[in-house]
Structures are given as C-alpha cells and as structure tokens.
C-alpha cells in the first residue's frame, strides 16, 4: 500500500503542528495578553530570570490556567488516540474505538455514581471530595474493562469476538445503571452529569494532572514497543503466533493499556468522543498502517488536535465555554461519515 507522505515528513509535520498547537493554547484565551507579555511570562515559568514588573497577570493566567490546561489537553489527546490505535489493532477493525471494551461506559457509570451518589453520602472528608468523581470514573472504567476481558476468556484464550459482544452487552448494562442514576438525580446534578458526558479541559490543576501525566507517559512509552507485534497481528492471530508473537500477552497488554489510559483521561477531563476513533484513521490515511509509524504519530496528532479543539471550545462563546466533546464530535462525526462514504464509492 502506497502512502501519501513519508514517515519522516509526517513526523516533522506533526511535531511542528504540535508545537504550534501548544503555543496557540498558551497564547490565546478569553483574556487577551500582549504577545510580548506571554513570551516573557513563558520564559519566567521556564526559570529564566526576567524582571517581573507588570507580568503578574500574564504569569498567573499562563502558569495557573493555560499551562495546566495545555498539559491536560496533550495528555488526554495523546492517550485517547493511542488507545484508539491499540483497539483498532486488537479488533483488527479500523472502526473500533476505546469504548468497545467498556472503558467509557464503565467510567460514565462511575462518574454517575459519584455525582448522584456523592450528594447522598454527603459527609465525605474535604480532601477526598474533589477527587471522588475522578476516582470513581477511573475505577468504573477499569472494572468494566476487566469484566469484559474476563468474559472474553475461555480455556486460557481470549476470544476477540466474544469480548466485542461482551463489551456491547456490558455497555448496555452500564447505560441502564446510568439511566437509573439519572432518574434519581435532581435537576442540578443532572446538568453536572450531562456536562461531564461532554468533557472539558476546564479547571485543570496540577494536583489532578500528575496521575494522568504519569499514566499517559507510561502508556505512550510502552505501546510503541509493541508496534511490530501489532503489525503481525494485522495478518491474523494464528499468523502472528507463527511469527513468534505471544498473542495472548499482547491482547492482555492492549486491553490493560487502553483501560488505564482512557480511564485516567476520562477521569481527568470527562468523556471526549471521536478522538480515539478518528485520529488513528487520519494518520493511517496519511502514512499507512505500519504501527511503528502509526503509534507515535497518533500521539502527536491526537494531542495537537485536542488542543486545537479546546481552543475552539474556550474561544467560541467566551467568556462562557463550550464543552470540548461538542467540538470533537462536530469535527469528528462528519469526518467519520466521509470515511464511510469514501469507502463505498
């Protein structure tokens, strides 16, 4: 299969795009800062000793609001795209997305439990309260995925098709439980739940960022090492096994990395759709299906695109903000349709 661009060109282009997206994400926002102030504040944040007079506001906006938000966007975008590649590789289907193994619906269930149940529990200790939602979403995603994986296993082998169907069944089950929480919720909690389901990078803070950064760095370093095995898996499970790939172990790793990565991303930023589905597609379209290129390129592309989508989210309605899930779906859904129709022509 011929590719549109050489891997080298692709990486240079994506790196430039990513740097541009980071810069725009730091430089633009509802508060308009002079370019020079942004530059000086950025240098100061990097530890360059510059005279601070008149920079207080720029430093605060950059350091406390835009930088954590940018880091969150990078990590979430990168890890979602990477998990998308992992799932499309595992199911050997370019239409697979991380939601298939139940991680998204599990996280949604955890979040609904935290948002609705949290008000019943009431007297939680102060330190624990703010993290309850993230923790429940993370554990929910991990739990449902573990169950899907377990259901897909028989006689020491993982049947991908069974896993797929188990994922669909458990997703339906989880949505009905979310529906029950929705019924129990009052008006205000309901809106919180709705907004959570649309995702947002709003209100990013360093204390919530670290767990996600660690997890996504781990996943981003680990998965590309398995690129060759994923390439072999493209040929089929038995073919991959003949080529010397421990297929069972690979499947386990892919599911585990996806659950961990998507779980952490969703816990930090809520549900953000279409990144995991569309970004790997986009990269495959440009550079072909070789996972040695696909995996790292998807990280860069996912991170850049999410930052750009976030830019739209925070600027379109300023001083109010659009949930980022609306923006990604608005771009992602038509693109997905285009892919479908293009295949048919």
């Amino acid at each position, binding site marked *: 299969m011929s590719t549109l661009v050489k891997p080298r060109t692709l990486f240079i282009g994506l790196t430039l795009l990513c740097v541009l997206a980071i810069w725009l994400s730091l430089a633009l926002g*509802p508060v308009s800062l002079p370019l020079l102030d942004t530059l000086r504040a950025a240098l100061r944040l990097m530890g360059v000793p510059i005279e601070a007079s008149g920079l207080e*506001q720029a430093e605060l*906006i950059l350091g406390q609001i*835009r930088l954590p938000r940018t880091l969150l966007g990078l990590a979430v975008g990168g890890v979602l795209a990477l998990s998308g590649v992992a799932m499309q590789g595992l199911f050997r289907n370019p239409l697979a997305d991380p939601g298939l193994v139940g991680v998204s619906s599990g996280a949604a269930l955890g979040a609904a439990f935290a948002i609705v149940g949290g008000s019943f529990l009431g007297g939680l200790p102060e330190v624990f309260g703010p993290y309850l939602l993230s923790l429940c979403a993370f554990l929910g995603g991990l739990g449902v995925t573990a169950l899907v994986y377990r259901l897909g296993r028989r006689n020491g082998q993982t049947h991908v098709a069974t896993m797929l169907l188990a994922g669909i069944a458990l997703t339906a089950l989880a949505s009905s439980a979310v529906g029950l929480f929705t019924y129990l919720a*009052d008006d205000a909690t309901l809106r919180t739940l709705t907004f959570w389901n649309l995702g947002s990078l*709003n209100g990013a803070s360093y204390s919530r960022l670290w767990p996600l950064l660690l997890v996504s760095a781990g996943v981003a370093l680990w998965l590309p090492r398995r690129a060759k095995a994923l390439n072999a898996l493209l040929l089929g499970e038995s073919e991959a096994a003949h080529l010397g790939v421990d297929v069972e172990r690979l499947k386990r790793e892919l599911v585990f990395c996806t659950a961990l990565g998507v779980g952490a991303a969703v816990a930090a930023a809520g549900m953000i759709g279409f990144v995991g589905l569309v970004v790997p597609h986009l990269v495959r379209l440009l550079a072909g299906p070789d996972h040695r290129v696909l995996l790292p390129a998807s990280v860069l592309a996912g991170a850049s695109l999410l930052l750009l989508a976030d830019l739209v989210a925070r600027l379109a309605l300023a*001083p109010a903000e659009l949930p980022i899930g609306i923006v990604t779906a608005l771009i992602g859904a038509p693109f997905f349709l285009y892919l479908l129709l293009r295949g048919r022509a």
Partner: protein
Amino acid sequence: MRLSASAIALVVGLMLNPGAHASELPQRWVSAGGALSEWVTALGGESKLVGVDTTSQHPASLKALPSVGYQRQLSAEGILSLRPQVLVGTEEMGPPPVLAQIRNAGVQVEMFSAQPDLPTLKGNLEHLGRLLGSEAKAHALFTAYEQALDRQKRWVATAQATHKAPGVLMLLGNAGGKPLIAGKDTAADWMLRQAGGRNLATHSGYKPFSMESLAGLSPEVLVFADRALTGEAARAALFKENPILASTPAAKQARVFEVDPTLLVGGLGPRLPQSLVQLSAGFYPPQATSAP
C-alpha cells in the same frame, strides 16, 4: 491649635470616609445565579454587573450582558477576561477548581445559599447590601418582602378557614412535552404551599409521571412552568401533547395557571411574592373570597 488640628482631621476624615469606603467596594461584578442577579438589580447594582450566567434572565436588560455560561460550568479565564472584582453565586456555582483559580487571581468570590426560606434570604440580602454599600436599602427590601409573605400567609389562612385547600400538581415542561411533576423538597412545592395549595405529588424532586396516574389524582388545579413557551401557546401545547389532562377537574373548570420557571431556581427571588398572590387568586377563586 492642637484642638483645631484634630477637628480638621476629624472633618476631613468624615468627608473622605464615605468616598474611601465606596472605593473599597467592588465596582465590577459577575453574578452567577438568577435570583442573586435580580437582587443585585433591585439593590441598584445593575450598572456594576459586567457579566451574568445563563440562569440570570430577569430583568430582561441583563440578557445584554456577556454570558459566562452555566453556573456550574464556569470558565476561569472567561470570567477573568471581564476583569471583575467580585464573583457572586449560590453554592451551586462551580466547578471548585475554577473557583480556586478565580480566587487566586485576586477576585473576591462570594457564595450565597439558595435555600428557599426567609432567614437565608435575610442573610443573603444583608451580605449583598454590605458588598454594594446599600445596607439600608437591603434592610428595607427584606422588611417589605417579609411583610408581603406574611400578608400572603394570613390571606391563605383566612381563605382556608372557609374553603378546603385545592389539590394541585405542578408540571414542568418544555413546549408541553413529557412534563416533570414537582414533588416534595423542591422550590415548586414550597411555592404551592405558600400559595395555599395542597401538592398531590408525594415523591421527592422533579420526576416524570405516567399521565394515567396523574389523571387518577384528579387535581383541582394545574400549575405549569414551561421553559420554551409562555401563556396561551404553552397551555395549548400542554393539552395537545397530553390529551388526558383535559379530563382532569382542573381542566374542566379552566383552573390551569402558569408560573415562570425561573422562579423555581436559585432561592427566593424578588418576583416571588407577586406570583404567589396570583397563584392564590387562582387557587381560591374570586367569588369565594377577595384577592390578597
């Protein structure tokens, strides 16, 4: 000499003090809470508002201000771009990390309770009055409010001495479709009781209801709050979407009344007493007794 010097100091001090005091008060306000924005306006602070949230719909002039979005989903940088000195909102305002960021940027963040009761309102008005430098007006407004609710209570008591409290259901809907019924522990329930009605719904919160069981309760009065339509259009849509409502005693006797859904969020607002008077007049028809 010493005496006159201190006298001058005193006079100068007195002259400067109100000015100095006023300049310390926040002059640029963002309000995230419908009822709060109304009270800020009632206290004469509308010109200080530089942004409001999407629940601030009254008075209509507030809609011209920049919108900071929904009160639970505020954006730190968005709000900071309005350069406010104070952000007021109910305890529903959030998310908490954003409020922390706004606080760190040196903006005063003031939380108010949205509990629908008089002691809460008293505290809220005093607090707002202090922030706006119009304590006296806040006090006067509260006294008038208290008196209005008191008059209301007495009127209802008189009416109930001779008439049975009507069984009421409150329907919240969007263009008539699938209304939610207001149960216990809601602002709507409080309103119905203040107006002298008996809420037939026994669940808590706002819940969807099967139309069959709704008709089975035979409400004597229906009160609806529609988020999309008002007046006759809303009434027509309600009966068109839910034909079974037409068989209720309320519909047969044309006792179907409307309240503004914005009255039901964010605590007691300034327009509430007037709506209660109107509701009461509907609950106890004029031939039975005179309006409060």
